[in-house]
Structure formats: C-alpha cells, structure tokens
C-alpha cells in the first residue's frame, strides 16, 4: 500500500531536481486557460496541441531568449468563474504568461482579473495573450497594457465580410443568426451597421438570436431563414451551434452561402461533410490551401502527431512571443510587453504588426469556402477551406478609441 506513495514521492523529487538542473536556462512557462474537457474541449484542445507543437520547434531553435518554452494546460470548462480559479492556480504555480481564446465572456473575466492582479502586485506582473476572444471593446474602451490580441476582432472581420457582400450585386437580402450572448449581439450589430453604410439597398430580412449551446434542432430557425428568402446568412456561431445549424440547413435544402466566423470549429467538417461544400464560408487569418509548403508540412505532421489541425494564429502568437523575448533579451513580462508593442512578424498568412496603440494585431484576412478533394484535408477528411479572397492588413484595419495607460 505504501509503495505507490513512495513512488509518488520519488517522482516528485525527480521532477523537482529536473527543474533545478535546468536552472541555468529556467523554462519560461505559458498557461493555456481554455476548455480542455467537456463538450467545448474541441476548441481548447487544438490550441493546446498547437502550442505544444510550436513550442517544441521553437525550443530546438533556442527557446525564448534562451529559455525553453513550456506549455501548461488549465481547464476552465469555459466558465468565467472557473477561469479565475485556474488563473489564480497558474499564478501560484509561478506562471506569468496567460493564454486564452475561447469565449469573450471568459476573456472579459480574465481581462479584469489580470488588470486587478497587476495593480495589486506591482512587482509580479502577468500578461494576457488572447488568440480568439474577439469582442471589439477589449482593444477599444477596455484596452489594457497587459492584454495583447492576436486575432482580428469582430468588426475587422465583419468589415471584410461586408466588403465582399458589397461587391456582390446579387445579394439583396441578408439573414443574421447568432448566439444569444454578448458576442452574438456584437456580430449582429456590427453586420447591421456596416451593411447599412456600404449597401443601404440590402434588406436585413432576419436578425435572430438563439440560446448559446442549447439548441439541438435548428429546424424552426431554418424554416425562418428559408421563408425570409435570404441570399446570404451571416453567423458568428461556434462550437456545436455552427455544426448543427449547417447540418440542418443542408437537410432542408437551404442553398445559400453561410458566412461564418468559426466554420472551421473542429468537428464541423466531419459532421457537415459534403453538405457544407460551397455553402460554408470562413473569414480567418489563413486558408486550407496551405500554399506555403513549410506550413503544409507542419499541418501534416501535427495531425499525425496529435490528431488536430494546424492553428495558424496560435502558432504565430507563440512565434511572436519568442521574437519579443529574444529582442528584449529577457522573459520578464514587462520587458516583453514593451517589446511586443509595434513588433512585426512574417507569418503564414502574411505580415503581422502588433499595433502599440491598442495591442490589436494587424493582419491580412482571408475569405475561404469549403471544398472537397483538397490536397490538405482538415480533420483527416479531404475537405478544407479554399481561398476566395484575400484582404490586406491595411484594408482590414480599423481605428481604435483606446487610450492606453502604460506603467512607468
């Protein structure tokens, strides 16, 4: 009976001494606070896999300013309150870089908690690296020196989507369907505002909100879309909600383009399959053509190793962190944050700039559509998103209202 405990003790000793040995190049640790279990783990696990995958490669290249990069996953079950518990755990474990992406509600809680932490502990600052919580206010009214966003926010993506619609004279009627929470409402408001400006002749024939993650049968919503006679549907749905929406649409023979923010949510392609071909559009930082052979090779080996697809912006985020650490000559959060401001980087999708004014990454965006028989399929299928249009970073950019307060 005692043996397992002795073993546990021995293992922890080995672990500790392992840490001690690497003292000359102590690892710099990043905490990923995202859903790692439960139904929403499909959006957290790929990020974890990508981070670990990229960290291994960067570590072979000397790590971040000579420190090996280590990724630690913290499961928040996509609950804002649990996220704060995990944040505290991560900080107690000595981690100073917090990565999070899924759920603007979680992002909002983390943003405020990290601001409070840095205010209460001026000698012990923490950085928040955000790769997918795209509520615009995070880099506008609520902008913070401690927050960096590595994804384009709702308005930037909508700006490009509506540009594309505006150039498409056939589109006369647009239907908006979104999840009934802050993010869904932001998408809907953004769409209405921009369409009104760019194409006042377009009629918004529907603006529906459904409960987040609770709808199992989208049929009633589909008949609404159908009867509205919409030419295009815009949705910010993610997770299960995008998946079932598209499935239902296909079943009822609704044959209009769905412009999505998260059509590439893992599981969607498997579930939707051929029903989604030429129907699901995606606005994102890259596409599924993998024209860059180096990235294509990484996609193949990541899927083979971990069973998840390549996550370009997560990879780019970690690569930028390495660059910032190397340039700052330190892994101290404050020094790294100062270097990150204005940092430029060439990633798979193009040239990236971390705008100093609001810590919003400026990046090119791609509109792509689901196709079959792709050279590099997603989720082990031969479906993937094929590029339809590319928008340069200076086209996608938007001004900010942020008045950044920097520490001395």
């Amino acid at each position, binding site marked *: 009976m005692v043996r397992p405990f002795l073993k*546990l003790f021995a293992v922890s000793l080995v672990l500790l001494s392992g840490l001690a040995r690497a003292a000359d190049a102590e690892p710099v640790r990043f905490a990923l606070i995202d859903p790692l279990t439960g139904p929403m783990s499909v959006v957290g696990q790929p990020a974890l896999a990508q981070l670990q995958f990229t960290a291994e490669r960067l570590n072979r290249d000397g790590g971040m300013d000579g420190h090996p990069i280590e990724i630690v996953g913290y499961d928040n079950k996509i*609950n*804002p*309150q649990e996220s704060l518990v995990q944040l505290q755990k991560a900080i*107690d474990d000595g981690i100073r870089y917090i990565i999070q992406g899924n759920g603007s*509600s*979680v992002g909002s*809680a983390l943003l405020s908690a990290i601001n409070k932490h840095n205010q209460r502990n001026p000698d012990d600052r923490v950085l928040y690296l955000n790769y997918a919580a795209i509520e615009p206010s995070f880099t506008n009214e609520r902008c913070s020196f401690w927050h960096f966003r590595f994804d384009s926010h709702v308005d930037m993506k909508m700006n490009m989507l509506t540009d594309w619609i505006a150039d498409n004279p056939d589109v006369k009627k647009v239907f908006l369907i979104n999840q009934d929470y*802050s993010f869904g409402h932001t998408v809907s408001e953004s769409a209405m505002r921009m369409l009104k400006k760019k194409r006042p002749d377009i009629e918004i024939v529907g603006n529906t909100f459904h409960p987040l993650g609770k709808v199992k049968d989208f049929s009633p919503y589909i008949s609404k879309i159908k009867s509205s006679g919409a030419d295009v549907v815009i949705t910010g749905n993610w997770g299960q909600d995008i998946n079932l929406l598209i499935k239902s649409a296909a079943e009822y023979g609704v044959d209009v383009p769905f412009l999505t923010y998260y059509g590439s949510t893992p599981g969607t392609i498997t579930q939707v399959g051929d029903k989604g071909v030429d129907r699901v559009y995606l606005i994102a930082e890259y596409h599924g053509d993998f024209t860059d052979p180096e990235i294509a090779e990484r996609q193949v080996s990541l899927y083979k190793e971990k069973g998840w697809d390549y996550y370009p912006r997560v990879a780019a985020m970690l690569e930028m962190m390495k660059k910032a650490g190397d340039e700052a000559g330190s892994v101290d959060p404050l020094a790294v944050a100062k270097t990150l401001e204005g940092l430029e980087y060439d990633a798979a999708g193009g040239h990236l700039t971390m705008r100093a004014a609001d810590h919003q990454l400026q990046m090119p965006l791609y509109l792509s559509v689901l196709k079959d028989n792709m050279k590099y399929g997603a989720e082990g299928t031969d479906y993937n998103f094929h590029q339809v249009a590319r928008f340069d970073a200076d086209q996608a950019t938007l001004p900010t209202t942020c008045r950044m307060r920097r520490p001395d």
Partner: protein
Amino acid sequence: MNESLSWWRPVAPWAISALVLVTLPLVVAGNGTFSIINVVAINIVFALSYNMLLGQGGMLSFGHAVFFGLGAYGAIHAMNLIGEAGYDGHGFWAFFPVYLLPLVGFACGALAALVVGWPFCRRAGTAFAMITLGLGELVAAGSQMFPTVFGGEAGVFSNRMVGPVWFGLELAQPADVYWFMAFWTLVAVFAMWAFTRTPLGRMSNAVRDNADRLQFIGYPPRNLRFLVFIAAGGFAGLGGGMAAVNYEIVTPESLGLLTSGLALLMAAVGGLAVFYGPMVGAILVTVMNSLLSDYTDASILYVGLVFLAVVMFAPGGLGGGIEQVRLAWRRGDLGAHLPGWLGGALAVLLIALGLVSTIELVYQISHGRDKLARLLGLEPDPASPLVWLGIITLFAAGYGVARVSGRYREARA
C-alpha cells in the same frame, strides 16, 4: 466521563474549530492552498444551508443554487455600489465595508425564498423536488434575459478592494481573504447549529418525520416548511455573498442545476443525519474536484462514483461513519468493532483502486494520455494481460475482504 468537565463538552468543538482556523495560516503557505481553503469555506456554508432543507426538514431541493446565486448577485452589485460611492464618499454604501457583504447576500437569499417559497412548501417529497427543479431551470434560463442584472454569459464582476477598511483587514490576496472566510464560516456554522436548537429547528425535524401528526396537533407543516425554506435560502445567500467576495465575479451558472446538484452531492456524501456531515462532504468534494482535475480528466466521474457508493452502501454518509466510530469510542467498545470496520475500509480501498485503474486505462485507450499514471511513475500497457489480471486480482481481493469483514461485523453486532 468526568463530571467537572461537563461544561467543556458543548464548547469544545467550537473552541477547537476556532483554534484550528487561527493556527491554519501558520501551517499552510502559498496563495494556492488558501484559494482552495476559501472555496471549501464557501461550500461548507452552502452545503450546511442545503442540509437545513433536506437533512433537517426532509425537503429535497434541486433549486437551492437560486438562493446562493441571488445572494451572490446581491453582494456583487452592492460591491459595485461601494466602489462607486467611494468616488464622492456620500451615501450609505460609502460607509459599508466589503467585509459585511455576506449580510447583503443573506438578505437577498432570504428575500428571494420569502417571495417564491409559499406555493412551493405545500408538499415535501417529489412534488417539492420537481417544483424546485423547475424554479432552478427557470431562473437560470431567465437570467440570460436580463443582462443588466445578471451580466449575461460573462456575469457581473467587481473589485473587492473598495470601501472602508476595518482594523486594517485588506482583501488583496487569497491569504487575506482567508480571515474573512474563517470569520464568516464560523459565524454561519454557529448560527445554523443554533437554529437546530431552536423550537423551529426541532419542529422542522418533526415535519420531516411525520407531517400529518404535526398537522393534527396544530402546527401546519406548510408554515414550518416555509420558515425553514426562508432560513435555508438566507444562509445559502450568505454563502453566495462569500463567493462574490472571493471570486469578484458572479455568473449565471451559479444559479443553475449544476450548482444545486453540487450542494446535494456535498450534503449527501457527508451525511444528512449528522450536523457536521455536510461540512465533511464539502471538504471532501471540493478538494477532490480541485485536486483531481489536475491529474485526471475523469474527475467528475470519480465524484459521481463516490456519491453513488455512499448512497448505495453508506446511506449515513461519511459523517454517519465518523459518528459511529465516535459513539463506539465513547461506549468503550471501539476495539471490538475496529477490525471489522478497518476490514471494510480496506475492501473499499482495494475495489476503488481496481476501479480507478480500470477507468484510467480505458481513458488511456480512448484518449491516449493519462496524467495520473504518469504522476505515479507508472507506464501501464493497456494491451498487456498482466495489467488486467492485476486489476481483476484487486477486485477479487476487495470482494473477499468485504465478505470476510462483513461476516466479522455481523458476528459482533
């Protein structure tokens, strides 16, 4: 026992608890440990308030989180008011310390129970269970519709470092919050214990045991249930107020079925029939939840299995077990019972080990990773028959020990 020590007996548990609470910070260190302790404190109050309904009043509720959550929302809004009043220093809230927010939580919880409770308390049993389930789902779903009150998915957040500070008691770090938690837990536990000693507390036991008889002797059970319901709602709200100060955020999840289920889980695992049972349950379940989830993805499954095992094999819960041991010790025949009980514990341990190994191996097969096994320095190969033979041996040994010790216990009884 010694006559001259009789005054000591009722005081002892409280004196010892207070002593433990005061010395705890000398023993433990690190904000992480305090974070867990603080959550334990909240859950102790929550689980005890739940047991006022189920254990003492015989009312099985699936909506207790509503009062916990509303108490938390009340406290967090009050915290924001304190923050705002701090700018000009005028008004009631400018003089209200954050330390007293659990009182706001209590008021909100009790008020909510007062408003909705009357029609609910007509019947106990399944009808009560269902109507509270309905209430819980209703409030949880309805909270999404009023973002200005409930904050939508993101919830409402606030900053606890506002308002007047008494005696230099700041609430910056989890270690500071510990004192706040210790104080309120002690107050709440004492108040709930005192409640069981009041005539109302005694009557609630009578309603549980025989509502009809109470009706005949002139105490309408509905009135009694209603009063207990309000008190339990108030203490749940107090727990909610503590949670609001601890997390500085309240989300609609805190009103939902999962949170209600947590209270039920903690109370039942700890034991419904013993006053301190839910406290034991709160400690165990909270620690299990927060520690296990670091090492295994099956943590919820383990909590569920523990709960199921308690319901099936130990209806008295952990508290019931402790009470049995205590009584035997007092009677002086602990020595006679101990081998049987230890045998039973060994059997549970063996079977649990077998179960854990099975679950972790299946996880390894289906998910391809297993942190728990790696932590123990084991690299079991799920394809190897030896591993499975080992597991079967564990189960068989556990079963054998259970049979033998069971027979031993029967022979002694």
